[in-house]
């Protein structure tokens, strides 16, 4: 079972959190802080497994993480999950499942922290096709991408009368204030993940 999936950046700011067991909000934040503390002090060339933190898990639980540029992807899992399997799930790996990160790649063309920041909901929808209720639902990337796209298409077709003006408005908003977002984003845009080769 996967107990939690946490994505946060190099400063510990959460970008996506998904707990498969209930924790109160303040406890969730504490867990994020603790996990960040554990993970961030590790070099990039050490192993990607950690015996669980004190707040989440216990002896049976492990933290398995990957670090990409500015983001940490952390899975808290118990002993029924294969460590390497989860790493594969997070990253392009030995098996043919490029699942999670690669999936993000396909849907946003090129995943970077900004995509996550502004489209947290979309990332959630993708994640929902990969992991459900703490168990891995699908490892076939094509299947995942297909389902996500179909759902997005459905959302667009539903848009109709009420959504059209909203889209126009948000387009206008973005046009009207070109400086503000650009100024902020420039620093972040550099941190694109290098495209990872499958082997």
């Amino acid at each position: 079972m996967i107990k939690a999936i946490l994505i946060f950046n190099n400063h510990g700011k959460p970008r996506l959190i998904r707990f498969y067991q209930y924790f109160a909000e303040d406890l969730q934040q504490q867990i994020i802080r603790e996990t960040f503390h554990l993970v961030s002090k590790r070099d990039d060339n050490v192993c990607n497994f950690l015996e669980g933190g004190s707040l989440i898990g216990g002896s049976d639980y492990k933290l398995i993480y990957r670090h990409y540029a500015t983001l940490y992807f952390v899975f808290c899992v118990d002993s029924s999950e294969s460590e390497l399997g989860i790493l594969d799930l997070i990253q392009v790996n030995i098996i043919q499942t490029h699942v999670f990160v690669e999936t993000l790649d396909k849907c946003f063309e090129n995943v970077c922290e900004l995509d996550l920041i502004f489209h947290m909901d979309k990332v959630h929808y993708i994640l929902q096709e990969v992991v459900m209720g703490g168990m891995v639902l699908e490892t076939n990337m094509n299947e995942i991408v297909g389902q996500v796209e179909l759902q997005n298409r459905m959302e667009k077709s539903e848009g109709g009368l009420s959504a059209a003006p909203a889209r126009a408005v948000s387009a206008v908003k973005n046009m009207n204030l070109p400086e503000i977002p650009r100024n902020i984003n420039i620093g972040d845009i550099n941190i694109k993940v290098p495209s990872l080769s499958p082997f």
Partner: protein
Amino acid sequence: MALKIVKGSIDRMFDKNLQDLVRGIRNHKEDEAKYISTCIDEIKQELKQDNIAVKANAVCKLTYLQMLGYDISWAAFNIVEVMSSSKFTYKRIGYLAASQCFHEGTDVIMLTTNQIRKDLSSPNQYDTGVALTGLSCFVTPDLARDLANDIMTLMSHTKPYIRKKAVLIMYKVFLKYPESLRPAFPRLKEKLEDPDPGVQSAAVNVICELARRNPKNYLSLAPLFFKLMTSSTNNWVLIKIIKLFGALTPLEPRLGKKLIEPLTNLIHSTSAMSLLYECVNTVIAVLISLSSGMPNHSASIQLCVQKLRILIEDSDQNLKYLGLLAMSKILKTHPKSVQSHKDLILQCLDDKDESIRLRALDLLYGMVSKKNLMEIVKKLMLHVDKAEGTTYRDELLTKIIDICSQSNYQYITNFEWYISILVELTRLEGTRHGHLIASQMLDVAIRVKAIRGFAVAQMAMLLDSGHLLTGNMQRNGICEVLYAAAWICGEFSEHLDDPMQTLEAMLRPKVASLPGHIQAVYVQNAAKLFATVLQKHEGATDSQAAQDTSQLLIERLPLFVQSANLEVQERASCILQLVKYIQKLQQKDVEVAEEVSALFAGELNPVAPKAQKKVPVPEGLDLDAWINEPPSESESEDEKPKAVFAKEEPKQSRARHIEVDEKELARRREARKQEQANNPFYIKSSPSSQKVYQDAPGVEHIPVVQIDLSVPLKVPGMPMSEQYLKLEEERRQKERADKKKKDKKKKKREKRGKGKRDDSGPESEEDITPAHQVDIVTEEMPENALPSDDDDKDPNDPHKALDIDLDNLLLGNDYRPLADSEKLPVRTHRREVLKSPEEDGDQDGITQEAKRRSSKEKKEKDRKSKEEEKKKKKKKHKHVVEEEPPEPLSEEPVQSEESAEVAAPPTSTSAEASDLDFWLSSAPVPPPIKEALAPKTSVAAAPDSEPDVPKDAEPDEEKSLKNKKKKQKKEKDEKKKKKRHHHHHHHGDGGGGDSVQNGTVEEEEEEEPLPPMSNYCLLAENSYIKMVYDIQGNLQDGSQVVVSVIFENKSNSFLKSMEFNVLDSLNSKLQRPEGASPHDGLVVPFQLPPGVSNEARFVFSVQSIVMPQKLKGTLTFIVKSEDSSTHEKLDFKLHFTCTSYLITTPCYSDAYAKLLESGDLKSSSLKLEGLNMPFHHLLARICFHHHFSVVERIDSCASMYSRSIQGHHVCLLVKTANQTVSIDAKCDEPSLLANVLDEIKQTFSQC
């Protein structure tokens, strides 16, 4: 309308969407909290609007804020609103928010049931998918119960996308609603062979999760998984299956043998490291499970170790880490094969990754032997010097100590070496493990007698050098070592070369800066040293030196008398007074040495750490009761040193002796000696041996010459053989004396040179003789120590409830079909509450008769149509639960197996048991006929969930009578064989008189007498005790039943301390006294002398009574015979039948008729054939066993009535003709009725 929409859209122009919110937060880095609080205010406004799009947008933003740690539970209702939108876009937002913040405590969750049900059955697969995903995160027991059936239907949806989600979510449903596991399992199993790989993978996932917690229930699926393993190409599925096999092999070694080959093939063929690693892991598990039986798998071990070596040598840190992890598993059973890779492991100690170093340390722990211990520890000591972080250094330190002290110092051949290692470790600054080193020093010095001389010398050095006094004086710091040093020097002061010098070192002013508990030990042991010094000097008639010593003490002790620590103060002032008194005597030239040293005479033996806990509490002693009333204010107790060391205890009692004056002291000493002499467990001190030690100079006496052993004195507590062993050892040692001396010198040189040279040549294990006779004194345990009752299972584990015997569902013989009650709840309309029959009777008017009749007809029609509807539903339901043979209970086990064989496809459910056996024992494709011949193992043979069959409870005459009946029956109906006893019958309690109850009494005249009956049936029995039980509803309380259990002592011993405990289920709970935790047992309020039986009653509270229930429980008790007492336990299963919820209630015929006419009752019927017993017997049985009363009886027809504790009415119409009994029954709770009828049928199938 359109205008409104447009207006809403225009309004929305000014609303923020998620992106705006994120942008805003990023723009307000300084006052983020303030900005967010204004945003939340906006969101609150948006949520108040009617436009669902606005609401959805607001909820979407809330989801983001939730991630940042804001509580959004206040918007739960709005989230539900958005969830129920008809548009997928909004629905998805709503479910996402719900999955992030809903939990069992969210009260609006109960509003969602119908919405979710609607979404689950939506024609749009993505609506269904979104609902399933959301539900998987916030499913509650209520939701699980209400929706289980809907989800089960989805498991056979046409779209694989829905199927896989439905399959996966079932695991969550099982967790929350364990009752659903049995009915859903066949379907789940079916999904293992789904054509869609995603669905298959989901099913594997769920079953693996289930099996991980309760593997034994899933053993029968092994062949199926085996097939999957050899056919699947999906690595994810393979990994799961292989992990599952790893959990199953310990239960069935034959499975392991079968697995080895395909796993080895996979190891050779796969390129995926994750798969390779899991294969290796499972092979290891197999080898472990086989290790006891078959040693011949060295090839597989070699393969595993080889592959792991490759992993460890890989540059990928992850593989390295996992390789070490797996290696440590092999180490436990095959240490030899790992030991050859010691070089590799030691290399890993240099790794930059701390977790890898720690894993390597773990491995080293298991790799040491007598031969390599010194070498490994030397390496570790080097690492201690190099280590940077204190945490890692501390870890190294504890590991060194663990490695050396493991299994009672098994691998240490030279304790001098170990003591010097410990002393070296004291140079570590800033460690937190000072106390660990200290306790090791104490332990070794106390338990290894031969080393004391050396240890004392080293400790004196530690006390003298004072480097420990300069470090920080924290608790648990390295200064703790001084505690041990002072105590050892004091206690074994006879070994000291220069006690005077040590005494001075101990009384330095600097000592006053040490923590209090250490100072206390200093003071106390200074007194011991004082005694030694006195004795030494008095013998030599050097009175001046002795007086100087007294003077020294008198000068230095006042420093401690002023200590803030009470313990120190108290001891110091006592000793100070004592010394002053001694000084006076010395000045009068009185010899005092003898008496002073007598203060500290006697040897201390180590006490096992758990000894105190194991002392049984004497009967009648209440440890929690106050002896005196507690003082009103808390006493300002000075923080007393925690008893870090178990050996501390005896010393404290001695301190108390010192407080009294000399005379009293002498008297008490005398008394104590007396007591010790009488106590066989006290190892008496032999002054002679002490003398000998004193005389022996320095280290020379170390080669064990224990004089007291040659004296033919039987030391109590030590077997004679051991002495012989020691003598033999001595003899051998003399023989090897020369060689040994050489060795010793070598070792000494080694010790003196700081860096120890590694000169241990290629010695074989046998060559290494311990340098010291390791006389490791075993720790003392109290008399009647209770066996440890380590209950490490977490009773709160949600998976415990899922420990359901699924084999019954699958296996051919004795299988238990799904009872109606076990079927998943289907939605039904709420029935109106029935009026009590009495009330109805009162209102009954004859004039209304006709009117009522017509309405009755109408109602009847209504009911019929309703019934039909229900039947349809039931049919559907039946389909869901997989077609079961209609009356499997009446079939003979053999028959069912035979019939299964005729049809036998290899995976057919009914032939599963023998199938598994066969699959495990021989060729891969079992020919169906052979199956029958395959030996039945425990899997097939033990239907332990069935009510136990009482064996010899019946008196003989009755048995024969019964046999006759049986024969008759056999002739008439082959199929109806007596297979199971439900109730057992015997004379004694419950005789014929009260067996016919209430309404039946009047008809008794002309009928023949009834056979005696009893409702008590067997609960459990073993050679000590037998328990029979009966369950009665509680008339006063509708939610309680009383279980009466008769305990019968069958043994010749006395049974006492019986404790009755039951694992509560959600539905039924044992009533425990207030304040008891739900896992405490209830003490049975009596003891049982041999042959005696007694009855105890236990109250259970139940919630739902519509289905029977089984509770697991345990009885623990102590069997006390003349010479021994043992702890025993007996497991049982308490079966709450639906009958036990019924209470015999009389009912008048008019009220009864009214009740039947009301039309609120559902009906059901039952036919019993070949029943050869008088009608009145039949009625009596129903009355007695099922708590009914006869309302009316006309010839061969009778109406009966009963009521459940929760007020359900149960009406029966019993008719008999030609040995066929038909029972038509009505009840307002159909499943209760079905269960009661089932139970009635069972009762009669037994007679």
